[in-house]
C-alpha cells in the first residue's frame, strides 16, 4: 500500500539520519517482563540476551514493533485504556495512544510493513463488538477504524489482501474482563480488506463454538495458523490449533488421543517457523510442535512456558515465567539465558 503520507515518510527516512533498530543493538525480539514489582520491556538478541530494558508503568500484554524505527507500542492489559509508544533509542515514552470514547484496546496491534500505519485490535466497551483501529504511525493520530467482523477480537496480522483478525467471540464486562456470553459465543476468523470490507470469514464447526480463537501466526504462502482457548467443559479434549487459507474452511489440527489434554484447553501463544508450528500452554506447562500441515510432532514439558517466536535459522525461541529463554525444537528445549524475572505472555519477533 503506497500512500502519499507513506511516500513522504519514506523520503524523510532517506533525507534524515534517523536512528533505527541497528543503532540500539539490532534486537531480534521484544518481550515484556515482571521483575520484582516492576514491569519492563526488553529488547533481545537472537541468542536471548537482553540488549536493553525500559520501564513500563504497568503489566502489558503484547507489543508491536515498528519495522524500521526503534519504536515499540506496548498495549495495556485488557480492558486496555491506553497504549504506550516507546522510543527504544531515547529510552522513554514519546506518545500515548487512547482509544476513542467507548472503545478499549484488546491486547494486540501491528504496523504495516512500510511502517506508516499502526492497526490495533479494539472493542466497543459495551457489548465487545470488534473494531480495528487505524493510526498514523508518523504522529500516532487516529485516522480511522473498521469493523473486525465479530466480538472480542484479540490478535491481528497483515496479509496481502488485508488484515486477518482472531475474533475470540467473547463479550467481556467493560470494567473487569468478566466473560458474559460463554453459553452463546461464536468466535471467527475474519479477513478485512484494505477498504474495510469483510472479504472472508470462517467459523468453527458446531460443538467447537466455545473454542475462542485468540492468537495468529502466518505461513509464507499466505496460510493463517490460529491458536485457541477452550471455554467449554474442561473434560473435553478439543483442538487448540487450526489452519486457515482465506476462502477455504478452517482445518483443525488435534493432538493425538489423550495427549491434547496436556494443554489444559489453553494455547497462550503461537509461532510459525519454517516447516513447523508451535503452540504453548503455561497452564499445562507444555509446548506442542506440529508440522506446517498441522500434523502433531512432539510435546515439550516446560513449566509456565508462554512466549514463542520463530528462531533465526530453524526452530523456536520460547520464554517462561521463571526467566529462561529457550531454544525449542521437536527434539527438546535448550536454555539460552536465564534472568531473575518473569517473561510475560508474548515474544514479538522483529523484521
Amino acid at each position, binding site marked *: 500500500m503506497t500512500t502519499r503520507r507513506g511516500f513522504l515518510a519514506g523520503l524523510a527516512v532517506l533525507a534524515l539520519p534517523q536512528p533505527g533498530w541497528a543503532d540500539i543493538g539490532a534486537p531480534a525480539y521484544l518481550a515484556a517482563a515482571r521483575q520484582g514489582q516492576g514491569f519492563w520491556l526488553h529488547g533481545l538478541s537472537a541468542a536471548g540476551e537482553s540488549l536493553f530494558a525500559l520501564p513500563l508503568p504497568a503489566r502489558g500484554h503484547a507489543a508491536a514493533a515498528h519495522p524500521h524505527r526503534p519504536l515499540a507500542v506496548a498495549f495495556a492489559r485488557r480492558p486496555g485504556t491506553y497504549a504506550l509508544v516507546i522510543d527504544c533509542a531515547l529510552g522513554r515514552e514519546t506518545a500515548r495512544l487512547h482509544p476513542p470514547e467507548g472503545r478499549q484496546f484488546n491486547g494486540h496491534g501491528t504496523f504495516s510493513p512500510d511502517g506508516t500505519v499502526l492497526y490495533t485490535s479494539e472493542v466497543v466497551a459495551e457489548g465487545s463488538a470488534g473494531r480495528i483501529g487505524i493510526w498514523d504511525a508518523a504522529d500516532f493520530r487516529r485516522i480511522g477504524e473498521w469493523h473486525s467482523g465479530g466480538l472480542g477480537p484479540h490478535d491481528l496480522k497483515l496479509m496481502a489482501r488485508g488484515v486477518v483478525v482472531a475474533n475470540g467471540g467473547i463479550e467481556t464486562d467493560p470494567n473487569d474482563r468478566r466473560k458474559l456470553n460463554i453459553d452463546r459465543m461464536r468466535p471467527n476468523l475474519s479477513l478485512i480488506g484494505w477498504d474495510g470490507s469483510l472479504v472472508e470469514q470462517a467459523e468453527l464447526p458446531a460443538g467447537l463454538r466455545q473454542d475462542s480463537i485468540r492468537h495468529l501466526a502466518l505461513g509464507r504462502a499466505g496460510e493463517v495458523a490460529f491458536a485457541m482457548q477452550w471455554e467449554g467443559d474442561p473434560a473435553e479434549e478439543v483442538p487448540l490449533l487450526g489452519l486457515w487459507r482465506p476462502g477455504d474452511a478452517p482445518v483443525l489440527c488435534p493432538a493425538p488421543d489423550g*495427549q491434547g489434554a496436556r494443554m489444559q484447553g489453553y494455547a497462550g501463544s503461537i509461532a510459525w517457523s519454517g516447516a513447523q508450528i508451535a503452540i504453548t500452554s503455561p497452564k499445562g506447562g507444555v509446548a506442542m510442535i506440529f508440522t506446517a500441515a498441522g500434523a502433531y510432532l512432539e510435546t515439550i*514439558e516446560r513449566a509456565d512456558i508462554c512466549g514463542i517466536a520463530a528462531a533465526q535459522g530453524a526452530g523456536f525461541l520460547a520464554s517462561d515465567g521463571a526467566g529462561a529463554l529457550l531454544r525449542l525444537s521437536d527434539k527438546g528445549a*535448550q536454555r539460552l539465558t536465564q534472568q531473575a524475572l518473569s517473561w510475560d*505472555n508474548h515474544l514479538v519477533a522483529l523484521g
Partner: protein
Amino acid sequence: MRLPFAAQLCFALIAVAGPAGADFPQTVQDHILPGYRAFADASAALADQAQQSCDPADLRPGYNAAFDAWMGVQHLRFGPVERDGRALAILYWPDPKGLGAKAQKALFGADPARLAPAAFAEQSVAARGLLALERLLYPAQPLSADPCALIRATSADLAATAAGVLADWQGGYAQSLTSAGAAGNPVFLSKTEARQILFTQVMTALEFIEEQRLGRPLGSFDAPHPERAEARASSRSRRNVVLALRAMRAMVATLTPDAPQTMAGFDRAIALAEGMEDADFTGLADPARRLKVEILQQAVGHLREQALAELAAELGVGIGFNAADGD
C-alpha cells in the same frame, strides 16, 4: 574428585541428618518411585488374576487394590505418565459424553486380533483403563456378551501401561528429576524447577478434587448430579477423594518438614472426607448430606490457599506468572 575418607563421612552424615533431608530427591525416592512400583505391582496382579478367572466377584478385590494404588500417584501429571496419553489411558474421567462406554461397546465380541496387546493399546484412551474395567466388573445392566476376553485385554493393557510408566521413571526420568540443576540436565535446569513442578502437581490435583471430583456431582443446589461422581459403580467416589488427599499429604511431607498449616489443612480435609457417610455421593439431593460435601469442597479450597501461602514460600516457588493470568 576423590575426597579424603573423613570428608566423605562428613558429607554422608549431613545427608542423613537433619530436616534438610526433606526435599525433592526424597520425594522421588520415598514417594514417586514406590508409588509407581505399587501401582505396577497391583495392576500386574490384577491382570494375572484375570487370566485365572473372569468372575467379577473374584476380580473386584484386585481391581480395588489397583485403583487404590493409582490414587497414590494420580496427582503426578508430568513426565512418563503423560507420554502417549498414558494418564488418561489409566483413568479416563470425567467423561461427560460417555465416550468410554461407546468406545467399549465396539470392542465387545470384537475380532480377538483387536484385543491383542499392541492393537488394544491403539484403542481410544476412553476405552481403556480402570473405568473401562469398572463397567465390566460392576455392570449397571447385564452385559450383552461375555466380557471375559475384554476383561483380560483391558487388565493386561492397564498392567502394561503401569509397567511402562515405572520403567521410564526408573530408566532415566527419576535421575533427571533428582539431579535437577546439575550441569547438562536438559529437563530440570535448577533445583527450584524440580520443587516447582512438584508443587504445581499438588495445586492442580487439589483443584481437580474441588472442581471435578466434588464439583461435578454437586452441580447446583437445584440440580445436583450424583450420577456424575467418579467411579460411582464401584462405590469409590468418596474413597478416591480420601486416597488422593492422603497421597498428596504424604508427598508434601517428603518435600519439606516445615509446612504445618498445609499439613493441618490436609488433615482437616481428610477427616471431613472420611466422615461422609455417602460412599458414592448418592445423597446429594438431601440438603444435609449435600452440605457435608460442600463443606469438604470449601476445606479443599482453603487447603489450596494455605498451600499457596505457606508451602509455596517454603519451597521458594509459586503459581506460574503466565499460568495464573493469561490472555
